[in-house]
């Protein structure tokens, strides 16, 4: 049991779910500190107001090798403004103190989420109100320290399944994941559009079969309401990152309120298209 379990309770995982053909729940990704820490708190409130139940909150890194240009630039903007690990904590703590209840998965790279501050850093995140940890460049075989710390801190862990992950590894990484399994919708970095086709659906079926006890998230290149609709019955969670980050950034640049911008963008994704 860990702090991400409320997600599991809300969205029963597994075949039962998929068989009901339920539409996946939208999990927005935002880069923390883009526009300043207060802006991030506002964005979190906007996402919650739109009806999402969880968010992936990205800790910016100077060298985000798994990210495409949009998230690279968002991280660079955040770091240029001096955004630190302590600011990340402060964002989450402030959002919680203002009554925010989204499930929060801290998302980032091994060097900033694990190496630099170690177990003490994870404890700080947990105290601030983080529920789970996802590290893009940490195969589960390298994650024994994370898994141990997460267990004792009650944090959920997320591991990734790629289109070229072997079946044996799928099972092992699903066993290691106490939060959810994050299936990468395609090869490559974040941001570029993804075709939701039979290849992806077959991949998701394989991942689902190996991980029936955990929630299954899909992400990389999802941008629209139609994308989410097309994933109906194939996964529990759908992550939308670059498209949201870019939208909020543009709105901010022309002086618009970011809470409203985030709410509006996410609300459109959360609502199924009229049939």
């Amino acid at each position, binding site marked *: 049991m860990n702090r991400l379990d409320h997600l599991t309770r809300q969205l029963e995982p597994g075949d039962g779910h998929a068989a009901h053909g339920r539409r996946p729940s939208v999990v927005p990704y935002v880069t923390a500190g883009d526009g300043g820490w207060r802006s991030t708190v506002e964005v979190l409130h906007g996402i919650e107001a739109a009806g999402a139940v969880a968010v992936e909150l990205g800790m910016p890194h*100077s*060298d985000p090798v798994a990210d495409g240009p949009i998230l690279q630039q968002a991280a*660079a903007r955040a770091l240029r403004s001096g955004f630190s690990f302590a600011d990340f904590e402060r964002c989450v703590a402030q959002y919680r103190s203002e009554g925010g209840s989204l499930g929060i998965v801290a998302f980032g790279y*091994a*060097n900033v989420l694990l190496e630099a501050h170690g177990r003490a850093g994870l404890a700080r995140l947990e105290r601030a109100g983080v529920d789970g940890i996802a590290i893009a460049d940490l*195969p589960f075989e390298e994650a024994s320290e994370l898994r141990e710390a997460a267990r004792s801190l009650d944090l959920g862990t997320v591991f990734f399944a*790629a289109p*070229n992950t*072997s079946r044996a590894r799928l099972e092992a990484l699903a066993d290691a994941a106490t939060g959810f399994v994050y299936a*990468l919708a395609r090869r490559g970095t974040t941001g570029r559009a993804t075709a939701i086709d039979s290849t992806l659906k077959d991949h998701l079926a394989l991942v689902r079969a190996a991980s029936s006890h955990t929630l299954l998230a899909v992400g990389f290149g999802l941008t629209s309401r139609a994308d989410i609709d097309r994933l109906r019955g194939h996964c529990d969670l759908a992550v939308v990152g670059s498209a949201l980050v870019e939208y909020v950034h543009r709105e901010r640049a022309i002086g618009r309120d970011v809470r409203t911008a985030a709410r509006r963008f996410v609300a459109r994704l959360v609502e199924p298209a009229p049939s």
Partner: protein
Amino acid sequence: MTDRYFRRSGLARPFGGCFVAETLVAPLVDLERRFLEALDDASFNAQLDMLLRDLAGRPTPLLRARRLGDALGCELYLKREDLVHTGAHKLNNALGQCLLAQRSGRRRVLAETGAGQHGVATATAAAALGLECEVHMGTRDVERQATNVRRMELLGARVIATDAGDATLKEAVSSALRAWVDDPDSTTYVIGSALGPHPYPRMVAHFQRVIGDEARRQILERTGALPDVAVACVGGGSNAIGLFSAFMDDAVELVGVEAGGEGIETGRHAARMASGSTGGVIGVLHGSRSRLLQDADGQVRATTSISAGLDYPSLGPEHADLETSGRARYTSATDRLALEACLELTRTEGILPALESSHALASVRSESARYAGRRVLVCLSGRGDKDLSTIAEHIAAGGRHE
């Protein structure tokens, strides 16, 4: 298979490892398998030996540098990697990795480059082996190393410039990794130094070991004895690990020389180990855990060096391990001292060395008292033609090198 890969991936803990996006795990496991098979494959080794001899021009000579040695008061030997085809040791490794890619049926290779030497080497190996080649390079290095960009293009490579971050070697590696993750099946990443996730550090050390093996044999033949000291510059650490590997079990002092930039005390340098308490602490960058110049939050710090090839915030995990165990010692040389050493070698021995290699010479000059009367082997990793404009600019700006 994957389990065994991960068990082998760590050097002495905590260094090494495999910190990559899930999409790269399967290609790396596959690469390791192909590399381990090639190690014992007589036909692979025969083909590589032939390429090293007939295309690269190996073995390279060992020069007794009498005039410079006399000036410094030591018995100085230079391993002439500047005479390798394309002008640096980089081709040893590029040929090994490209041959492996070709024999595994890959169509295309990717490389990163800082000074442009690894880019040129990979473009050359790719041309010779009929592979497509794409070289990633920071826009700042594209400017500093314009001649090498033109060479790569003539060799048929596509040069992809990236202007992210500092637009130097670090960003080039990130850019190449992103391109690989886009197309991991028909493409192989040919990394240019002893960096990256397992098995790269081990594989690059293997392909560069020819430097040390030849030098060891040559100096024994020439003098009947081993050197007292073996010195090499350390960017990512490939020429150094190639030299060191052959002397690991001998009573030979191993010295790696990092880029001291404008001086350690200015904070503007690329000395991950030689900068003491202000320097690199343990961290993960580009797939492995090593020493890394970073801030308290794990954000990577900017580096400064006159040498594009040394301008990188981390270094190969094997060097971090050798430093920790005390088997090798790491020091640094500033831009200014490297430049002076470069000019001195040119005038005393008639060899214009690469600015990277000049750092190794500079440290021998700075520590000449320590080396007095001893037999010193320096890896002259490359030639300096690519650096002509940088050298000219610094002379013009500094004035003092007449």
